[in-house]
């Protein structure tokens, strides 16, 4: 009996695991995305907490200007979307989703800042495949991963976690989600957290 149960259980277990790690790849990037395979879900330790003041930063943006967190104080709620690396499958299919929901961000008076540890030329070539993005894309390339490091989401291999930080107009962190790097975070959860912000 055991000899039938073991393979059956293994199959169920592996199917469940494979479902949990499934993903889609858009052909917008042709064959130019590199699939790093399954990575350790989280490989860093947060250095900030909900209720604390978000560490300020100034980073170069794709548009050419530098963007600072403090420039949104008193004006906009801010969503920081860190994605691990350009030209990888899940990252490539995350921001394009945010790109069609500007109205949702507007509704909650929020700006989205997309951040990776890649350099500007790489970000330029990569985001060009996504169409015209409405939100600033920032490079945390040099000093390498400094901002990711200050937030506690820089992994041991030098890329960042797939993480979301929701910061209110007073500069206080209201929500943190450090996602399994192998999965895209749910948009519903982010929208739910935007709804919780003080009006």
């Amino acid at each position, binding site marked *: 009996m055991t000899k039938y149960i073991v393979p059956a259980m*293994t199959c169920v277990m592996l199917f469940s695991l494979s479902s949990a790690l499934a993903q889609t790849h858009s052909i917008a990037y042709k064959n130019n995305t590199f699939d790093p395979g399954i990575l350790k879900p989280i490989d860093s330790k947060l250095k900030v907490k909900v209720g604390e003041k978000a560490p300020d930063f100034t980073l170069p943006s794709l548009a050419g200007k530098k963007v600072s967190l403090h420039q949104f104080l008193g004006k906009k709620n801010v969503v920081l979307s860190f994605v691990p690396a350009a030209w990888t499958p899940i990252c490539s299919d995350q921001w394009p989703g945010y790109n069609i929901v500007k109205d949702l961000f507007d509704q909650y008076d929020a700006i989205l800042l997309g951040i990776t540890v890649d350099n500007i030329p790489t970000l330029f070539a990569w985001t060009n495949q996504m169409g015209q993005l409405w939100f600033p894309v920032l490079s945390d390339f040099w000093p390498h991963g400094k901002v990711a490091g200050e937030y506690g989401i820089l992994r041991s291999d030098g890329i960042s976690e797939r993480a979301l930080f929701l910061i209110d107009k007073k500069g206080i962190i209201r929500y943190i989600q450090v996602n399994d790097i192998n999965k895209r975070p749910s948009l519903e959860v982010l929208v739910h957290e935007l709804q919780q912000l003080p009006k």
Partner: protein
Amino acid sequence: MKKAIRIPVFLVLGFLSAHNPLWAQTKAPQENSLLPDFQLPIPSDMTHHRYLGLEGEGSFKIQQIRAKAVIIEIFSMYCPYCQREAPNINKLYQRMENDPGLRGKIKIIGIGAGNSPFEVDIFRKKYNVPFPLFADNNFTVHKCLGETRTPYFFVVAINPQGSQKVIYSKLGGIKDLDSLLQTIRLRAGIK
């Protein structure tokens, strides 16, 4: 003992082959093969319910759709190519609905791979998609159809006895709508 180990080892290798980037391959059903069986929820929206010609509640299989051929688009709200292609696919739907020779004979649905109902609804509203879209939150259908990249288009011919056959299977957008419709007419025997 050896036999007991052998089967799980093959399963482990099977799992690895599906997820190792070097080994992974698309296994989408090809033309002249059967579409693997999967079920979708019968839409509660009455317009979509009537469009598909379904009865009652619960779930349905592709071959239960009242049509001679069904176009299935595998898309994702997060896929920029699918976003760019959306107006073209709406045009395809309108062309079929406005042609008395095709209306009711060829139908189209979209399946949002890895998308929740909330995400599918965003895509539907953003692009005013008039045909039924279904969420495939846990990638169940996506896995069943060979974990294709997006967008991917299948066309399935349905015969009156209820059997079905894939008559078109292709990755990427549809460049020539008329040519696709002509192919479907021929392969599904629509006069």
